């Protein structure tokens, strides 16, 4: 009788650990950690803190993001945010840009506000007449990518994007410049809080396929420890903080 390679693999491990053949002891319930109810409560607490401390968290994020190499703007209104993006587009003399379908960008009326800059702005979402291959080509050609954020993290100066319908993986990655717009109430205190919420998402079946924690420009110090930016991802990144 021959065993499947997969079973052989597990047999070797069980043997190495001294576990009985054909039996995988389960870790104790305490080791496996909190119950669904605990996760719910944890997530609820994190959401409360995000709202309650929204102001101080934005201030902390402004500082840590800036330390990480983001160009940070505190925008009191949708108009100031849109003006800032316009300025970036003008300065870059950008001819084409891509963006996600995040609602904050609609509320900024970005398509309208950028109309007179001459930039061709493409929403990276199917159902606007383009298929995946054509959208990808748009991202490759774009001078600028504009996104909202799904979360931000004050501890680490990060913006978190969770790609899904309407949120492209490529918009924040392929163009040489990325502008991310973070809303008040989206800022988490720490990395742990992000994973508390994501674990809750998972248990509700909403984890999705992908997540990126973005914390500054693409960088490398692989040659002589000398920092260079824009190696594969964007070399110039802007974070617009609303409110």
């Amino acid at each position, binding site marked *: 009788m021959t065993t499947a390679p997969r079973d*052989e693999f*597990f047999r*070797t*491990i*069980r*043997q*190495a*650990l001294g576990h009985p053949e054909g039996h*995988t*002891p*389960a*870790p104790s319930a305490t*080791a496996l*950690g*909190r119950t669904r109810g605990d996760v719910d409560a944890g997530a609820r607490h994190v959401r409360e803190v995000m709202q309650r401390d929204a102001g101080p968290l934005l201030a902390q994020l402004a500082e*840590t993001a800036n*330390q*990480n190499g983001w160009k940070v703007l505190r925008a009191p209104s949708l108009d100031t945010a849109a003006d800032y993006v316009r300025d970036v587009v003008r300065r870059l003399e950008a001819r084409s840009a891509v963006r996600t379908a995040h609602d904050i960008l609609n509320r900024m009326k970005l398509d309208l506000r950028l109309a007179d800059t001459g930039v061709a702005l493409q929403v*990276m*979402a199917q159902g606007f007449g383009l298929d995946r291959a054509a*959208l*990808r080509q748009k991202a*490759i050609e774009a001078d600028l990518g504009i996104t909202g954020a799904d979360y931000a993290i004050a501890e*680490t100066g*990060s913006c978190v994007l969770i*790609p*899904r*319908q309407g949120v492209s*993986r*490529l918009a924040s*990655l392929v163009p040489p410049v990325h502008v991310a717009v973070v809303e008040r109430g989206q800022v988490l205190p*720490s*990395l*742990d809080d992000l*994973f*508390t919420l994501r*674990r809750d998402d*998972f248990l509700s079946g909403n984890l999705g*396929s*992908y*997540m*990126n*924690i973005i*914390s500054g*420009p*693409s*960088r*490398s*110090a*692989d*040659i*002589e*420890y*000398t920092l*260079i930016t*824009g*190696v*594969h*991802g*964007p070399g110039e990144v802007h974070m617009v903080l609303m409110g």
Partner: protein
Amino acid sequence: MEPKTKQFNQGAALAIRDEKAQKSLLGLYHGFHAARLRAADATPNWEELRDHARAIKAHTVEHLDYYLAQVEANVAKAGGKVFFAADAAEANKYVVDLAKARGVKVVIKSKSMVSEEMGLNHQFEAAGIEPVETDLGEYVIQLAEETPYHIVAPAIHKSRQDVSELFHRKLGSAPTDKITDLGREARRQLRQKFIQADMGITGANFVVAETGTVVIVTNEGNGRMCTSMPRIHVAITGMEKLVPSMKDLGTFLRLLIRSATGQRITSYVTAVTGPRRSNDEDGPEEFHLVIVDNGRSRLLANPELRESLYCIRCGACLNACPVYRKVGGHAYGWVYPGPIGAIVSPVLTGLGDAKDLPYASSLCGACREACPVRINIPRMLLVLRRELTEGTAYPGQRRVALAERMAMRGYRMAFQGRMFLGLATATGRVVQRPLVRKGRIRRMPPPLSGWTRYRTFPALPKHSFRSRWKRGL
């Protein structure tokens, strides 16, 4: 990859004489090592994080069979496929067969130490498929046809002139002394490959059992490219990279990144759970996770070496190690250099050929102190030394140390009996005479010549301490 662990002494001697290598190795100390210390200081509960991480790793490794089965089930639920490879050959076959079956011509790779272990690039080339390393350091290494010098900074031994010359020779680009130009040239070259490639290969810094998620930490964004642009994503990982739950990631990301480069966080942390979903705008259609044993079950089976599987490959022990910082990465002869390499390489590739590695340490303990998961590396080096002396079941193992055992027996005799010691030192004083120059012995006859090949030995003084003591000093 073919191990060259036998040639430690030659490799070390080369590096010690190489001024450029010495300069870049010194840079590791003033760069990464110093940055790690600062980052640890700036993290309020650093020591607790280390304890916590170690406990999680110990727990996961004790239940590895349970968590591996969980990963398998959850990757499948997310629409991906897990392949368990007992060794490098099985892993290579799975990945290369997959590439062939899907008509892949160009493969882009983000850093994966395990794929180096497997020698995957050679297998691709043999199948007429072009593998392209996309991490800037790895790209340089691939063009130079070398092995990584450091876990985190694979090309840190190369100067800008070296890289410029290499790019000029291999890519035809104009020579430059600006590192920004070199970066731009790499971006230009690799961007085309990202667009052409049908398969992206990445490693995994962590695999979350509960969700089937692969977590990849990069600064350049090549990891994101490899998981976003091609239609197939294959992640390759050693079987020890598991953590039970998402809630463990905060702890491990902090420890890994802050220990590796001293950054608060890298530019990108990417979490992949299966292929793109039907409504997603982009991302690969297929996701495969290859989980590799390749000798790790030997580390697992030995309770004295098991904790080497807690390693998160941060490289901190390399930067802290006074031996690594002199002999550099190539001397270790395989994929994993430095203190942790001196444990992992012998067991994965065969202790018999790697018998110099466990001795490439002064046992000063700097590695253990630096290690974010508190791995007791010196203790395991001693275990391997003991096994070398006593002989064990590792592949390629010979009972090498007959001479050493004889010497130890003599030593014991000498030090147990006062008379014997007195006789031995008296004899020594006579025998050493032709060898002594300025109070040091510079060359001893075989089998002791190994000792004096690279260092001198103090000669026995004219009068022993014991005889001087008797005379009232």
